[in-house]
């Protein structure tokens, strides 16, 4: 299945989906050295975001979150790509400075994607491809 979307940060990447119905504050929620979600209050607590196509409504919290995304990338534990319903500046800036493909402008149905489904984000062509199970 192919879905059209809006490019925020260029590039193209694939990986298994990891879906959060909650928005994410990268500062404090994700360990910048391991890519593990460490906030016990968060739906994804205990999950590794490294290499995943992280699908979530959008970001929130401290602007330092942008730099945390960059640290994840340098440690090799960043998401392969990200999909938002609507991007806000913290995640948008974080993805861009980290060269992680990021798109938004998709309907909330994307949040029903099953974890582990292989998803390709082609930000340059503004396309998301979801493999059939």
């Amino acid at each position: 299945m192919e879905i059209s979307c809006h490019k925020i940060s260029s590039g193209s990447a694939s990986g298994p989906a990891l879906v959060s119905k909650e928005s994410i504050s990268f500062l404090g929620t994700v360990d910048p050295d391991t890519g593990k979600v460490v906030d016990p209050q968060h739906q994804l607590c205990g999950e590794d975001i490294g290499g995943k196509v992280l699908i979530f409504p959008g970001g929130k919290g401290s602007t330092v979150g942008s730099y945390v995304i960059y640290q994840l990338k340098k440690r090799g534990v960043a998401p392969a790509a990200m999909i938002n319903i609507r991007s806000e500046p913290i995640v948008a800036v974080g993805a861009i400075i980290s060269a992680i493909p990021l798109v938004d402008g998709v309907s909330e149905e994307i949040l029903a994607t099953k974890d582990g489904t292989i998803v390709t984000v082609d930000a340059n062509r503004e396309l998301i491809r979801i493999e059939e199970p």
Partner: protein
Amino acid sequence: MHLSREEEQAYQGDLGDTLRRAMEILVALGDIYGADRLIPVASVQVAGVSFKTIGEAGLEWISDLRGKVVVPTVLNPAGMDLRRWQDMKIDEKFANKQLEIVDAYSSLGISPDCTCTPYQIRPDAVRRGDHLAWSESSAVSFANSVIGAKTNREGGPSALAAALVGKTPRYGYHLEENRVPTHKISVETDLESSDYGVLGYIVGREVGEGVPRFSFRRRPQVDELKALGAAMAASGSVALYYFEEDAPQAQKGAEEISVSAKDIQQVREENAPDEEVDIVALGCPHCSPKELEDIARLLEGKRVEREFWICTARGVAERCPNLVKKIEASGAKVFCDTCMVVSPASDRHQKMMVNSGKALAYIPGLCKIKAAYGSTEDCVKAATRRD
């Protein structure tokens, strides 16, 4: 968002990776906030300088950047005086990281002036009507409200992107329709200088992101406006206010708020100093030459009995060497490039007395110490009082 041919080339990466990433930041923010195009900026002030704030994550990003800024660009305050950090008892590890951050910014062509008051060191660099991409909340407020320039409150990366491209997306406070007053504030008492910080502290909490239009009994002085705007940007997120009689009229249905002498007295009483005060710090925002002069006069012939910091821009201190000498003769310390809010040196104290509504709002949360408020005179008294 519409891009010119040259902007489009930069966005597609034809002019290198740094410019591509900078353009992506500007376009992403422009799309998020509904900008129609990019506009040139006269100058940039970049946030994200104190190692205490941005940590390893931020340092890594800045160190990896390659490129040169194309408009005059300065920095926000750092976590320490870049030369006298040992006098602040900053540990060497932090100092090295902090110097690395400033060096990394300098190698991008950014001037290593670390101040929240760029308009005090380069008054010619910003004029009425200029579009800017400034970051620090009190500088943004001063530029919009007192100078009559136009700037949003930028984050670190978006300010840097604006400096590399020389442009910013046209939205928010760049547009006249977003500069209309949303609240009418009537101040029903005569104010002393030190009341402006309290007034800002009160009004910021009330109006949040609004655009207040003040009516005063007398026209405030520049340093008073600096204190007022800084406090409103800290207790709320006010980026623009009006204080002149001929300012634009407030929008229909604007909320009216009156502030009385009693309201101001109440904040003062709640934050009155006591014996626990073990440090006094002035210069939030950074002291003007006039404020240094007042402090020097108040300190004449006195000895300070506890830690007393006066924070200013290096450019201001260099312009007033005799005032700095006079102040330091009392045992007080004039620190440049930094302030009590962003320096970890504040954290080892118990209770800090300030004359700033902004510092009063931030010190408890950011430094995890208590804060007390008083006029400059009261602060000098507290610093020189013998137990």
